[in-house]
């Protein structure tokens, strides 16, 4: 009995000693993140426009251009050029027509100018590699950094088993939260932008980045397409900005003694 008590006391002392010996201090830190792209050569940025498709309720070209311009105005050191959005789909169609004598989407059987799926974007994507075109645009706007790309914002529906927390009360009235697996039909939106950064001096692509964000709601819940679009864009804006400007990420770490 005495030996067991001594052992218990010893182990308690050991635990207390370990806790006492592990001195730690929480400290706030700010991690500076260097931009992925060196934009020091540019004083101006032109968000030229996007080839967009998917939902008919949201003009992905106009909304994305407006949103990125306003974000860059407040969070970037470059001067944002205010100008009309470039009609990139028309430009792509024209250049393709002159080179191949055929309209985009004709091969797929879709009405020209209608982008419903990712594959519908392909006939237009050659415009981003058109060095002469971008060089001309660059000359027109005093050789800025050009931001362009594609934006697919489309409705989606999904059904399957979903795990969610449910409150239950036992016979004594005590509340518990238990995970419950239920079959649900959900609908929402998926946003797939591809941002392309072009050197306005040479017309060449400097950097390109793909994103994918989605949001799903219960089937009986209605959410306007435009508000879902902004919610999804909100998630990826920090990553977009970190391509062009340095950012500081706040956090807390534990210093040890």
């Amino acid at each position, binding site marked *: 009995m005495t030996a067991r008590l001594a052992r218990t006391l010893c182990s308690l002392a050991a635990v207390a000693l370990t806790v006492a010996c*592990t001195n*730690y*201090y929480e*400290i706030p*830190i*700010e*991690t*500076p*993140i*260097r931009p*992925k792209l060196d934009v020091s050569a540019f004083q101006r940025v032109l968000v030229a426009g996007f080839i967009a498709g998917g939902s008919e309720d949201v003009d992905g070209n106009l909304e994305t251009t407006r949103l990125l311009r306003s974000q860059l105005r407040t969070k970037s050191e470059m001067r944002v050029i205010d100008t009309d959005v470039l009609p990139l789909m028309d430009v792509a169609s024209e250049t393709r027509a002159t080179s191949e004598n055929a309209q985009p989407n004709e091969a797929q059987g879709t009405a020209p100018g209608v982008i419903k799926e990712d594959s519908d974007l392909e006939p237009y994507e050659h415009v981003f590699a058109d060095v002469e075109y971008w060089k001309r645009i660059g000359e027109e706007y005093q050789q800025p950094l050009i931001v362009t790309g594609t934006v697919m914002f489309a409705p989606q529906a999904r059904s399957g088993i979903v795990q969610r927390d449910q409150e239950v009360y036992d016979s004594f009235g005590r509340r518990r939260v238990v995970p419950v697996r239920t079959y649900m039909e959900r609908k929402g939106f998926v946003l797939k932008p591809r941002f392309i950064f072009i050197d306005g001096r040479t017309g060449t*692509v400097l*950097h*390109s*980045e*793909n994103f994918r964000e989605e949001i799903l709601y219960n089937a009986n819940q209605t959410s306007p397409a435009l508000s879902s679009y902004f919610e999804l864009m909100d998630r990826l804006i920090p*990553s977009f900005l*970190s391509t062009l400007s340095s950012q500081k*990420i706040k*956090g807390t*770490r*534990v*210093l*040890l*003694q």
Partner: protein
Amino acid sequence: MRLLSLLFAFLLTLSVAPLAADARSDAKKQVEFGIAVSQRGLWREAIYRWERAAQIDPTYAAAHNNLAIAYEHEGELDKARAAYEKALELEPNNTFIKQNYELFKEINDRTTRPDTL
């Protein structure tokens, strides 16, 4: 002969043990000073102190952990990763170091997205 070598080993242990204890004690002083200055925002000085601590006692996990945090604060992410990995190598079950490293990785991954051109 065997007894003699055992005796020699024992004496060697006795003579080395205080040296190791001294090294840890010196390193600990540097670590403590580093913590004090980092709390006042003097991160470059803290880095100097923790680098000294890690030199004096390379097995001191806390020195490497703190150094990693300071490098992270200064934006030297490659150095921070190496210091965290060293700290974890020394104390793989230390939850504080593991937590710090996980938070660091989350930030570091943002800067190295694989789907870029």
